[in-house]
């Protein structure tokens, strides 16, 4: 009997908690409806396509290849990123560069974004600092998979 009473009080307390949440949030929603500015908002929701969350500086977004001063890619086609990639989504073909200081350059450089898991290992592995994931671009959904194959032109642009 006492246990039942304690449970009953707990039940009432629970409903009071949700009622409080409802009332407080509803109050701020109503204020917003009448265009009254308040510090607090009725909901924690970020309405995505219209408002966007600020991307953290260390966030790993879409890859980009860096350029030398003369506009060629900084990549020397050493294949370290291809080796380290856990989802095997990179494909690099090397070609010989006339400059003996550089020796090699990538003739094709393809990242299959449909397989990429955005671990950032390629960025860590790169000895030339040629690839970075700091474009802050996170919306690149496509209707077909082959449009997710990003080649050298797309990555460097």
């Amino acid at each position, binding site marked *: 009997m006492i246990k039942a009473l304690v449970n009953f009080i707990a039940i009432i307390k629970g409903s009071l908690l949700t009622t409080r949440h*409802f009332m407080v949030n509803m109050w701020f929603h109503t204020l917003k409806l009448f265009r009254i500015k308040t510090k607090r908002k*009725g909901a924690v929701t970020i*309405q995505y396509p219209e408002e966007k969350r600020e991307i953290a500086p260390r966030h790993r977004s879409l890859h980009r290849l860096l350029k030398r001063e003369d506009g060629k890619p900084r990549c020397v086609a050493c294949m370290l990123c291809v080796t380290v990639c856990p989802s095997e989504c990179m494909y690099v073909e090397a070609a010989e560069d006339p400059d003996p200081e550089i020796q090699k350059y990538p003739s094709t450089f393809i990242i299959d974004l449909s397989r990429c898991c955005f671990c950032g290992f390629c960025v860590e592995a790169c000895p030339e600092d040629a690839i970075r994931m700091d474009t802050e671009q996170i919306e690149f959904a496509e209707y077909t998979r082959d449009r997710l194959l990003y080649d050298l032109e797309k990555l460097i642009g």
Partner: protein
Amino acid sequence: MSDWIIILIKIICALVWFLVIALYLTWVERKESAVIQDRIGANRAYIWKFRFIGLFQPFADAIKMLFKEDFTPRFSRRFLHNLAPFISFFFVAITVSAIPFGDVLRIGGREIKLQIVDFNVSLLFVMAMLSLGIYGIILAGWSSNNRYTLLGGMRGAAQLISYEVALGLSLIGLIMVYPSLKLSAIVHYQGELLWGWIPKWGVFLQPLGLLIFFFAAMAETKRVPFDLPEGENEIVGFFTEYSGLKWGLFMFTDFMEVLIVACLLTTLFFGGWQVPWLYADGFHFPWGGAWLLPHGIVVAFQVLAFNLKVFFFCWLQILVRWTYPRFRYDQVMDLGWKLLVPLSLVNIAGTAILMSLIG
């Protein structure tokens, strides 16, 4: 002839009221749960740039359900499978005929009761129709010919039958206090005053009965704290084999039950269309003084009061649904048979003793 037209107009008005509010309860449920959980809720459905905080959402849902494939499994009993949702829908929808929305409206020397039919046993009628709704559930469970749906249907029947007992017993005290089974008469009795100033509502005369009725009626709606027939996290429920609009009908029936339970709570325990101290000719306050009003405004006040009370109880039921976790099967049965039924018996005995003492 004109009587028939009046009846027809009343039926159309009441059904439209009932269905539109039940439709918008789906939206209210989504919005209210969102506000409780610090979210925003459905606000994206729009017609040509206008969103109106998501008020078009129920229509978007309905259109989606209309165009979904209505699949009947090969192994089901086809006729009953198709019939079941309509049975459960019909028996809830018909209960609105007994709900009094207001007192009489006088237009052109004619007295129109704001109630579709005012017959002598309307309370029993509503109870009977609500319990016949079980047939829809158990037929759906059985005719789908699937073990889980059958289990859901059986559980639904067991739950509804056991709570039917508590529901019926909790109302006996009320019937003793207001000696009538006629809903309009019960509402009229509640217009009197207790000790000259408290309105004689059921909540003041039958607090325990109200509590039992509320729990049992919540169980009747078979929503979350008592969602045994559905049990989405264990047996998916009696409508597993339904899709499209027939599934939507089951869901819609749930919301209609919420609405009819709110109507019953209002009518039986919170004075129905009564506004405290409002009489046929206006307000007469217990501390003296009066505020006389024309007939039309008094009726408008009554209908408004009824609607506000109903909305409050819809809100309360949705709040309960989004506050509490669901009961296990044995817990529901324990609560029903070991707590609510004895308590309602105690309520009957206590009411009888008090009434014989006071006279």
